[in-house]
């Protein structure tokens, strides 16, 4: 293998859009899928910007699941932060999910699986950016999201006695991966088809 040196050089101005004002936060609806169900061979990224995923495809017979967290600030605690490394810095990405429903089915189908599985989550940012490419952000596509904390506080006012799960993608090489397939409408159609399965 030929020796290669990576030059990390800035390639654009650090600017803010004056026409499209940023909005903080995430919308209520999201998608979650098993990391191992992703067909990485069929999944493709944008040729010019590898931080954009053009097609997110699941293996035959697999499907994604919808998430819904109500309220003004759903998925509170979702964040990305730098993880300092010896040779290279990486990113930790946290996704916080509240599962308000509780019961044997939820425990069996969701909580037990969340506790031990590896996942990928797609969340919709409130700020779509000037070209809508900021709309959908993927967490866990590189290293996978795994549970780091799960609490079911029966007297919690926030979770109303439901579960609060925190999933973390540790040491992801890229700071952010966005899902955009030709247009925002096409991207939404593709996301809906993830839920429909094959």
């Amino acid at each position, binding site marked *: 293998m030929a020796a290669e040196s990576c030059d990390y050089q800035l390639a654009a101005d650090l600017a803010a859009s004056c026409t499209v004002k940023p909005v903080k936060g995430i919308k209520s609806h999201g998608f979650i899928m098993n990391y191992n169900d992703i067909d990485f061979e069929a999944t493709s990224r944008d040729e010019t910007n590898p931080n954009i995923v053009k097609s997110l*495809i*699941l293996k035959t017979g697999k499907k994604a699941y919808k998430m819904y967290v109500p309220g003004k600030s759903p998925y509170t605690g979702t964040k990305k932060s730098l993880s300092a490394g010896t040779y290279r810095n990486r990113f930790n990405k946290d996704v916080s999910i509240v599962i308000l429903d509780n019961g044997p089915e939820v425990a069996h189908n969701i909580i037990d699986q969340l506790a031990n599985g590896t996942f990928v989550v797609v969340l919709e940012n409130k700020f779509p950016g000037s070209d809508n490419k900021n709309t959908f952000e993927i967490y866990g596509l590189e290293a996978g999201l795994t549970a780091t904390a799960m609490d079911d506080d029966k007297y919690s006012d926030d979770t109303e006695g439901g579960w609060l799960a925190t999933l973390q993608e540790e040491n992801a090489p890229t700071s952010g991966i966005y899902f955009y397939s030709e247009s925002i409408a096409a991207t939404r*159609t593709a996301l809906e088809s993830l*839920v*429909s399965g094959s």
Partner: protein
Amino acid sequence: MKSRFQSGFSSSDRLLLDSLHRLLFGKEITNTGCSDCYRDAYVIIYNHLKKSKTMPEKPNYVLKAGALIHPAGTSNFYVNPIPDEVAEEHLSKYPSEVNKFAHLPTDWEDRVAAYKARKLAQAKKEAEDAKNEVPATSAEDAEKIKALEAQLAEAQEAVKKSDALRKEAEDKVKTLEYDKSTLEQEIEGLKAALEGQTVTDGEGEESDELAEVRMELATTKAELESANEEIASLKSDNRALKAANTRLKNNGAKDTE
């Protein structure tokens, strides 16, 4: 499954209901979080199958979850269910994207080859038709062309007539000019004769011959004036005809263009 309608469906029952719902209605069961949702879906599917009396056929091409097909040059995006034609067109252009499909017919390569051949034959036929076909014009255009052709013919006829008239006028001018010169010569001759006569007769009374010559001279002068007037009038007519002729020729050239 009917026996488990009250007690609750098993996970395999739910999977079957999911796939049937997708095949029949092309979408997921709307809400799967409640205990009655699958019962509702069961009733909807049962009624639909009872009415149609046929089980839904599995499509030839099934895309994997998340796969999207966008035929080039269109604004359409396809997910499941995808028409055979669209799938084959996509595979004919991007055979490497066969990994987007969860299910394909075993002979998909032959089907794609057949699709390609079909498209090629169609393109050839269209090219031939286009070659043989007279450029299509609308009824309105055809009427306009007809009207323009009639106008052109009319203009050409008018130019011919105008040319003939101009020629005639020119001939007449020439004749009159010749007459004028003849008359002028005659006048000159008569004047000379008159002067000779006067010298011979002295200041006495004019002879009959002289009176006759004077009369003749007056008549010739009057004729000359009339001829001059006619020439002037014909020249003016001729100028007008020439201008009309130029206009018509220009219009004719524009119509031809």
